[in-house]
């Protein structure tokens, strides 16, 4: 105790024996050892220390604190404490200690050297705390965390397996659909080959072509890796190449200006059918009797949605062989209705002009 400390005590009206009473009654276990005695013997403990360790004062006094150590005590931590005591330094450490009855507890303590009036180290004072409960809950928490992590890993593995299964299934279904489209198309073309030239044969061939347009849409849908989107420009490029492969480029030119417009997969088939029907109709019927001409197809998107314009400079609707109540015509009308769009067929003088507006979702 420094002179300053003594002065402060005096001013507060407290005697030095206040400490003996306070420490003795403290619920914190405390111990004092004699630094000058042989092997640092215990010279004082409070009741809380007696309660913590289970030893009586008679059993404690005169002995070194290592009597509390045992098999489970960490030698490294003992060495750290011993070094601090040997060099008279303060230390906080946590030791695995044993009570008189053999039960173990985690003993967290602060040890500090206490000097006499001459400044020499005369005692060591240690205050302790039983950390067993805290350690146990930490352990439990770690166990819980490990268990949670294990559960999350297991769940993740399950989901991964489910995803792989789903992907494999998607590939399988995709493969089957494509193969079946090829079979359907082959079937119709085979029947067409065996049907005499005329209306029936033409009908079979146009059906095979419609299936072809749907096939092109389907092929694009799955090859892009994204099964939910469909790009109208890609489709148009491929589909128009198929269309123009069968016509004389000197007589009929087909121009297309189709923006890259992503639409939902659900719209792919109806849009493909509609574009096929209109473009094929223009190429086949607008230019009878060796007449030459031009077909233009434009598709762009604006605030109103998808705007499609198919125009030719051929003979026009009234002069054309196409019956407005015919199949191709009503197919287009039906598809536009399905897509909740509007369609206008107009005489373009010369030729035919078909304007279609299809609303697109916000997501599109």
């Amino acid at each position: 105790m420094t002179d300053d400390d003594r002065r402060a005590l005096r001013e507060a009206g407290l005697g030095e024996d206040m400490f003996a009473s306070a420490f003795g009654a403290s619920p914190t276990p405390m111990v004092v050892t004699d630094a000058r005695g042989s092997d640092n013997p215990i010279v004082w403990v409070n009741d809380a220390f007696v309660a913590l360790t289970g030893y009586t004062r008679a059993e404690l006094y005169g002995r070194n604190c290592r009597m509390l150590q045992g098999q489970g005590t960490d030698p490294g931590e003992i060495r750290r404490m011993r070094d601090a005591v040997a060099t008279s330094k303060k230390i906080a450490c946590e030791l695995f200690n044993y009570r008189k009855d053999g039960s173990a507890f985690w003993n967290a303590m602060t040890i500090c050297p206490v000097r006499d009036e001459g400044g020499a180290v005369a005692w060591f004072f240690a205050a302790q705390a039983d950390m067993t409960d805290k350690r146990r809950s930490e352990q439990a928490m770690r166990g819980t965390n490990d268990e949670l992590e294990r559960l999350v890993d297991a769940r993740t593995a399950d989901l991964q397996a489910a995803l792989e299964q789903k992907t494999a299934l998607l590939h399988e279904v995709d493969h089957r659909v494509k193969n079946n489209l090829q079979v359907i198309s082959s079937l119709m073309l085979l029947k067409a080959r065996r049907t005499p030239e005329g209306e029936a044969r033409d009908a079979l061939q146009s059906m095979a072509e419609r299936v072809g347009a749907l096939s092109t849409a389907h092929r694009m849908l799955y090859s892009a890796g994204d099964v939910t989107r469909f790009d109208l420009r890609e489709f148009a490029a491929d589909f128009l190449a198929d269309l123009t492969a069968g016509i004389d480029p000197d007589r009929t030119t087909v121009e297309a200006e189709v923006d890259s417009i992503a639409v939902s997969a659900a719209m792919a088939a109806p849009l493909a059918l509609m574009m096929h029907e209109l473009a094929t109709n223009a190429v086949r019927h607008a230019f009878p009797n060796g007449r030459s001409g031009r077909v233009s197809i434009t598709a762009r998107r604006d605030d109103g949605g998808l705007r499609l314009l198919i125009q030719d400079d051929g003979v026009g609707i009234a002069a054309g062989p196409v019956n407005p109540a015919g199949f191709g015509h009503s197919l287009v009308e039906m598809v536009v209705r399905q897509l909740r769009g509007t369609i206008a067929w107009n005489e373009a003088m010369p030729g035919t002009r078909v304007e279609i507006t299809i609303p697109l979702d916000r997501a599109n």
Partner: protein
Amino acid sequence: MTAEPALRILVVEDEVLIALELTYLLEDLGHVMVGVAASSSEAIALGASTAPDVALVDIHLVDGPTGVEVARVLSADPRTTVLFMTANSKRIPEDFAGALGVIAKPYSERVVASALTYVAERRAGRAPATDTPDGFQLAPLN
């Protein structure tokens, strides 16, 4: 519509309707059919006995996904150019098992015609005049 020069073609396809229609289509295009095989053993035997210019090979055959193995065997003969013709291109190995490319099912007549024109040009030692059409994809390194 005829191709110059005509190619001698083996079709390896287990779906009878597809094989038959493809046969007609190839003949319309001016090519010569050397045979149709539905299984891997048939395909390999026909390949050995006919040494076709071109083999069109589906991946899934009567005896399972054996088309890859068929392609490997047939393409070992330098006289034969192999093209896969499948709806299942994900099954094609990275080295394409020796095949030149793949025609995706469902295919159109135009894609089959232009793929074969491409092959004919290559076999004649000419640089093919046009880009490959969308439904026809070349193996890497070609």
